């Protein structure tokens, strides 16, 4: 006998309401993460578009594709969009928001409404910036050096500065939420030393977000005040000090680069352990290294100013401290490498990105060591050597870590698997394209090509052409995931709760998770990355239907 069986679709955070209002007024950290994902992806392609125009212009020595003013706006806006509207939120606002409550066994972050507010602040800030860019842009460089930005530039400095100011609060609120969540909302049994390293990294990041962001906010406010009201803070013609601006700006912007790398390091810890199927080597050292980076990162800002007119003694102190901050990063790289030893290594896409990260971050970090050396820095600061260095750590490092994390948690977020073949191809294209784009720039820098140059002497052309060629390959590597991720949401294979056979609370709930994450609050009785006892976990914790 045939009876009509009505199947009830399992409740997940994705089908719990389809209206626009249910998304735009959501308090669910997972939905907010998706809102961020869409926003920062859009900003990534805006910034990438500017990069494409820059690299096209630099194919020839003459400034013949765009005018000088346009070129200056392009590199400025590329920097601003990529730093403030892509990299700083990327891993924390997307993967941190999605995963941290799951990883600590909580229903949501400590302050869900503040989380939503942080997204709105990001959007408002982005709108200010985008509108200013549409109305004519800004040409001060993302570094806004004075008195050019406060007196001589004829572009929309205040509009963009306001956008960054507002978006800064998004950062601060995110940091606040993470710190309180990690302190107060861990499931029973989840002690600090059992926390996933992803949480440790985000904790360290949040410290920087909260302590550092107010400084850039005030600095940009002072720039706006000087520009609008001619109050002399930075302009010597008004009695101000242009070097003071640099101190204030870099006091935030140096720690900001650690905001941009620590979350990525957290991703790598998760991915390397899962795909080696073992606990991380030296857990305490990796955890403490994150905190050390956050603290030491606040003490090195004037290494951006070695030729700016600071005293020899100040330069010595900052050079020395810059070497100290490099050490914890090196320790992490060694620990990840050692984690592979006697592991059981799989080559899934997240792991390929993690391998790429470790290699490229090592190169980027080592070139930072070049820059910390005073005698060398005098020659290569303000040249393409610096451009290559920071792209190695931010793109070769952080963006690859973001891609690793996106691929790793995509099945959890969407319940679908992406096509592995295409994903591996993209990872390869990104790795090859990236190196071809940025390695020549180290050589260009040492040869003396300054940064922010619209036109350049002809002897620099060959390396510039190589760099642009690499950028085209890199671009393909970034566009492909856009396509296959979207494809996977409809046609991808169902993922199941734990497609990677990973240890972690987020893998003990269905994919996609229900709105309240867990059927019952989990009770944690195992150490972090307890791969030895993996099969027993699934019986201990009640999994949702």
């Amino acid at each position, binding site marked *: 006998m045939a009876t009509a069986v009505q199947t009830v679709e399992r409740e997940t955070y994705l089908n719990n309401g389809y209206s626009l209002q249910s998304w735009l007024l959501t308090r669910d950290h997972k939905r907010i993460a998706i809102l961020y994902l869409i926003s920062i992806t859009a900003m990534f392609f805006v910034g990438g578009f500017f990069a494409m125009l820059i690299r096209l212009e630099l194919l020839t020595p003459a400034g013949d594709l765009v005018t000088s*003013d346009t070129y200056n706006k392009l590199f400025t806006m590329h920097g601003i969009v990529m730093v403030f509207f892509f990299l700083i939120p990327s891993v924390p606002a997307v993967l941190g928001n999605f995963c941290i409550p799951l990883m600590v066994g909580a229903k949501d972050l400590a302050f869900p409404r503040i989380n939503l507010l942080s997204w709105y602040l990001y959007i408002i800030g982005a709108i200010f910036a985008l509108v200013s860019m549409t109305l004519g842009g800004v040409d001060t460089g993302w570094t806004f*050096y004075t008195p050019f930005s406060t007196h001589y530039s004829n572009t929309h400095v205040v509009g963009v500065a306001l956008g960054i100011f507002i978006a800064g609060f998004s950062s601060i609120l995110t940091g606040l939420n993470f710190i309180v969540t990690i302190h107060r909302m861990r499931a029973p049994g989840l002690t600090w030393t059992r926390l996933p390293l992803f949480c440790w990294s985000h904790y360290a990041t949040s410290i920087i977000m909260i302590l550092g962001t107010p400084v850039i906010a005030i600095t940009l406010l002072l720039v706006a005040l000087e520009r609008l009201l001619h109050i002399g803070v930075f302009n*010597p013609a008004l009695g101000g000090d*242009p070097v003071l601006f640099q101190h204030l700006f870099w006091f935030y912007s140096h720690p900001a680069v650690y905001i941009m790398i620590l979350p990525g390091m957290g991703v790598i810890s998760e991915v390397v352990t899962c795909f080696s199927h073992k606990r991380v080597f030296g857990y305490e050292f990796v955890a403490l290294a994150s905190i050390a980076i956050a603290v030491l990162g606040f003490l090195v800002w004037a290494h951006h100013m070695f030729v700016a007119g600071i005293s020899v003694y100040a330069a010595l102190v900052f050079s020395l401290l810059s070497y100290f901050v490099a050490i914890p990063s090196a320790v992490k790289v060694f620990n990840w490498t050692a984690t592979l030893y*006697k592991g059981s290594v799989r080559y899934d896409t997240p792991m390929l990105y993690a391998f790429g990260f470790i290699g490229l971050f*090592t190169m980027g970090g080592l*070139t930072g060591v070049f820059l910390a050396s005073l005698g060398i820095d005098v020659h290569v*600061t303000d040249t393409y050597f610096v451009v290559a260095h920071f792209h190695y750590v931010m793109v070769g490092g952080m963006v690859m870590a973001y891609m690793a994390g996106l691929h790793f948690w995509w099945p959890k977020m969407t319940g679908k698997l992406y096509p592995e073949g295409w994903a591996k191809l993209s990872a390869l294209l990104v790795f090859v394209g990236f190196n071809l784009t940025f390695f020549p720039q180290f050589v260009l820098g040492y040869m003396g090509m300054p940064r922010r140059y619209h036109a350049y002497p002809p002897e620099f052309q060959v390396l510039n052409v190589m760099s642009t060629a690499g950028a085209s390959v890199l671009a393909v590597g970034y566009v492909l995931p856009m396509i296959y991720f979207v494809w996977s949401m409809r046609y991808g294979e169902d993922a199941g709760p734990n497609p990677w056979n990973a240890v972690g609370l987020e893998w003990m709930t269905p994919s996609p998770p229900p709105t309240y994450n867990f059927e019952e609050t989990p009770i944690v009785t195992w150490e972090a990355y307890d791969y030895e006892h993996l099969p027993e976990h699934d019986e201990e914790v009640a999994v949702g239907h």
Partner: protein
Amino acid sequence: MWKNLPLFPDQASSIAIQVDGLYAFLIAVSAFFTLLIFALIFVFAVKFRKAAHPKAEQIEGSLPLELTWTLIPLGISMIFFAWGALIYFQQARPPRGAMEVYGVGKQWMWKFEHETGQREINSLHVPLGRDVRVILSSQDVIHSFYVPAFRVKTDALPGRYTSTWFRPTKVGTYHLFCAEYCGTEHSGMIGEVVVMEPVAYQAWLAAGGASASLASNGKELFTQLGCATCHRTDTQGRGPNLVGVYGKPVQLNDGRTVMADENYIRESITNPQAKIVAGFQPIMPTFQGQVTEESLGALVSYVKSLSQPQQKAEGGAPAVATSTSN
């Protein structure tokens, strides 16, 4: 040795070889560690791939290993730091007797003035083997004086002097770049540094048609602007006697002692209320906005000349160097 490699600029100054030496060392050590990490990852990932090594061994860590790979990089870093610092000390301290050139950056060109009064725009002629000190400032925004072949770079700031020095070791023409973004034609602010044999350089100076030395221009300005009325050489002046001031400490009325360097002299002209010499009244008016960068350079040069044992020659004859290079 490096000149045939298209990867390095010319080594045209006495410091360039040292900078390149440190660079080579950094490359060697970095290449070693990079290749080490790449190799270890490759070997571990292949040797312990799942198919070959299905059961992972759960290793917690190793304190001795952690200490080793913390302390060894720290030690190597300290070598990089010390070596870089030593070079930097040299770059920061011009030898005595260096010839001086005043450089002014402005959107979007470089202006140089030699002590003999010779002026140049977007080019700088210097003699081979002589120590040259460039005293820099900007007329508007921050620029940066960068000569890759010399491995020398210093920002040029508005409102303040910075300086750098070099000893050219190879005849030739080298790029001068502005290395601090300064607006529309930042990349057009390119000049050339021309290193000449000393004889050729003297000939170039003589042919330049400079009518008066920088210091004598300064002396004229000093009179024209009325400085001489207060800054007299007897004890009756309302302002301090400036003979012998440059290069010595000055006691201020608030108890501080400062060194009378170029920035002190400059500040005394543009913001005289900032530092008052002990025993004098704060009555000097500011000349901010009334003097150009070039005039400031001339005045500073003049005040400096009041501390030199030999007066600079006035008129068209190029000044004879007062001392040879080290």
